[in-house]
């Protein structure tokens, strides 16, 4: 009875006051710990520069998306500003729940940011809803000591020159395995994902037309490259979810590398401190990609969009992103930030990872990530792991992946 009575309410999304704070001058931000500089948040909690509002920053831990989506679905207790992870495409189908920042004048700072990152914040209909925070340009992390012992090219310049194509990279891996019994990477998925992250073309175009079904598609090339790596035996076959195993493999040197983003430099340094000085960075085969990096968005219920945008542009200005890099190692999405930054540390020997990744960031291609990718990525990941761990025939696996993908896309209304 009660349920039946409430159901229409739920569907109409009728709530009381949809924002969190009752204080009219207070804007609430949801973010993750370490995704913003504490000093800057502290400043904004006094007053957001250029406005007469102040900020309340609430840390949300794991299950961030669940909390945000529940609030938006219930149309109640919605933050005025929210951070969103690199999976912002998830929100494309509900983009009307977020404000178009271009309409609010965000374009005036557009030139300060990497163009490819700005594009990632734009929805397929051309609305700019997701403002750039940090980025994750990628490179190939490797153990110089193990490469050297194996008699392979070992300086960053040598390795970069030796792996300009994926074929060369796999060939180098075969030698590494023969000479040092070590693997290039922990799993084939690392290859598949980073190949795509560095590709201008992904699964779909902006009209959600499937590109991956074409015989020469980027997805097919990423698949073939990953399968070739498996067949050459250069992956350690330790999948993503087994953190402990992966860390043990890197720490022990059994796996001598990883294709990772700028933020992984810090992760590695923290989880494998004993390997300090042994790691180096080489350019990813073909070109660098982008993995991770977050956005800021303004829900449609935002109390004061102008002040909220003022906060976002202020905290992401080149100077402040440089500060955030120093405080929390967030890799800046504004090239100008690097003018103020210098790297000190010897985890990567005499190599400067800051310089390495800021150079890489220049060459990341623009690409489009469709929401529909979320529906089918898992099928490719599963089938790739079947090829890798249980020796499934790669052609059969590919066909199963696209078969399952088609079923799901029909169900979700992407295909008709």
């Amino acid at each position, binding site marked *: *009875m*009660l*349920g*039946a009575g*409430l*159901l229409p309410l*739920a*569907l109409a999304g009728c709530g009381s006051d949809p924002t969190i704070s009752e204080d009219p001058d207070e804007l609430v931000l949801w973010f993750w710990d370490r995704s913003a500089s504490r000093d800057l948040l502290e400043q904004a909690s006094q007053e957001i520069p250029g406005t007469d509002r102040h900020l309340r920053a609430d840390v949300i831990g794991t299950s961030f*998306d*669940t909390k945000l*989506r*529940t609030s*938006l*679905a219930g149309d109640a207790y919605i933050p005025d500003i929210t951070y969103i992870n690199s999976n912002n495409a*998830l929100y494309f*189908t*509900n983009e009307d*729940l977020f404000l178009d920042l271009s309409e609010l004048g965000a374009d005036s700072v557009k030139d300060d940011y990497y163009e490819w990152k700005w594009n990632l914040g734009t929805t397929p209909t051309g609305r700019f809803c997701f403002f750039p925070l940090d980025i994750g340009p990628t490179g190939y992390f490797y153990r110089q000591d193990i490469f050297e012992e194996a008699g392979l090219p070992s300086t960053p310049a040598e390795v970069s020159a030796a792996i300009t194509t994926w074929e060369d990279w796999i060939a180098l891996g075969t030698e590494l395995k023969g000479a040092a019994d070590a693997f290039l990477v922990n799993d084939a998925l690392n290859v598949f994902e980073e190949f795509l992250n560095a590709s201008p073309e992904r699964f779909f175009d902006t009209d959600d037309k499937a590109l991956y079904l074409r015989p020469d598609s980027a997805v097919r090339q990423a698949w073939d490259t990953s399968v070739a790596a498996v067949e050459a035996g250069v992956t350690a*076959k*330790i*999948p*993503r*979810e*087994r*953190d*402990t*195993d992966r860390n*043990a*493999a890197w720490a*022990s040197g*059994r796996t001598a590398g990883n294709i990772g983003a700028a933020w992984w430099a810090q992760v590695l340094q923290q989880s494998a401190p004993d390997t300090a000085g042994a790691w180096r960075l080489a350019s990813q085969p073909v070109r660098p990609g982008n993995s991770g990096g977050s956005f800021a968005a303004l829900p449609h219920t935002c109390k004061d969009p102008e002040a909220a945008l003022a906060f976002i542009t202020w905290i992401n200005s080149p100077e402040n992103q440089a500060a955030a890099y120093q405080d929390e190692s967030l890799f800046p999405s504004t090239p100008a930030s690097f003018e103020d930054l210098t790297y000190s540390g010897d985890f990567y020997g005499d190599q400067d990872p800051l310089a390495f990744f800021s150079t890489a960031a220049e060459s990341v291609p623009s690409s489009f990530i469709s929401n529909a990718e*979320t*529906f089918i990525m*898992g099928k490719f*990941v*599963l089938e790739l*792991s*079947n090829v890798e*761990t*249980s020796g499934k025939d790669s052609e059969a696996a590919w066909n199963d992946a696209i078969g*399952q993908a088609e*079923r799901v896309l029909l*169900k*979700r*209304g992407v295909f008709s």
Partner: protein
Amino acid sequence: MSTAIPTRPRDALTPADPTAKRKRKIREVLPLYLAISPFYLLFAVFGLFPILFSIVLSFMDWDGMGEMSFVGLAQYKFLLTDGRFWNSVGNTFIIWFLSTIPMLFFAMVIAFLLHQNIRFTKFYRVAFFLPNVTSMVAMAIVFGSVFSDTFGLVNSALTAVGLDAVPWLSSPWGIKITIAVMVIWRFTGYNAIIYLAGLQSISTDLYDAAKVDGANLSQVFFRVTVPMMRPIILFTVITSTIGGLSLFTEPQVLLGDSGGAGEAGMTIVLYQYNQAFTQFDFGYGSAIAWALFLIAAIFAIINWRLVSGRGDDTVRRAVRTKEARG
């Protein structure tokens, strides 16, 4: 069975006055409804709406925040032919089977031993309770390290005694066994504590009688403890069935949202979670949830029949036997 309002004596005493009798009847029954009402009221207020919502949802296409659209039976039709769903059903049952029987058996043995007034009982009780509170994040790391293929303690031990290493976390059976071990580890103590709480209520007279009859420890266990504990065993069997069929935390902690290599550790609820909270397909998630409800209901009924059977009679007879002799 438990029909303790013995209306007979009172009927015999009270003259046949229908209205007085009815009034008395209402006066007797009213407190009983009052006693059980909190659960049903709370359920009506907080439980019913979400349930109706999720039933409606299973006929909708919904991503968890935007517009809903009605799709009729499409979600259920998809489910019937969804290989990943049926794989998860198979996995769930295999893991349930591998874990529940050893878990309940060990729990009963532990409870029985702890009930024997052996020394350090209090310490043992705390020790067996610890798995229930050890944080799951820590568990992920511990089990990941212990069962790691290349670097794990178990495989190191196996190779040290000349056996082959087992690919615990990358083969279909290894994954299922590891999850089952985790379940057994986490819930044996929990069930043992339920049994212990139940054992305390068995009259020691029964044990004395059995000892006087010269029964040894295992005879006491199988002829006194088990029959007297039948209602509680039924409870643990039903709750472990429900818990086992909704197994989620262990595989998720151990293998992540994907269920591990080849989805060998993908359980029904993990798949449901996957669909609803990582694929944001709430309509399909609801359909899976209701399919599970159906499976669990059938399974619970079968279990109930198997375990309860003539259970209550047995207890009654045991008590009567004892009383006749005592």
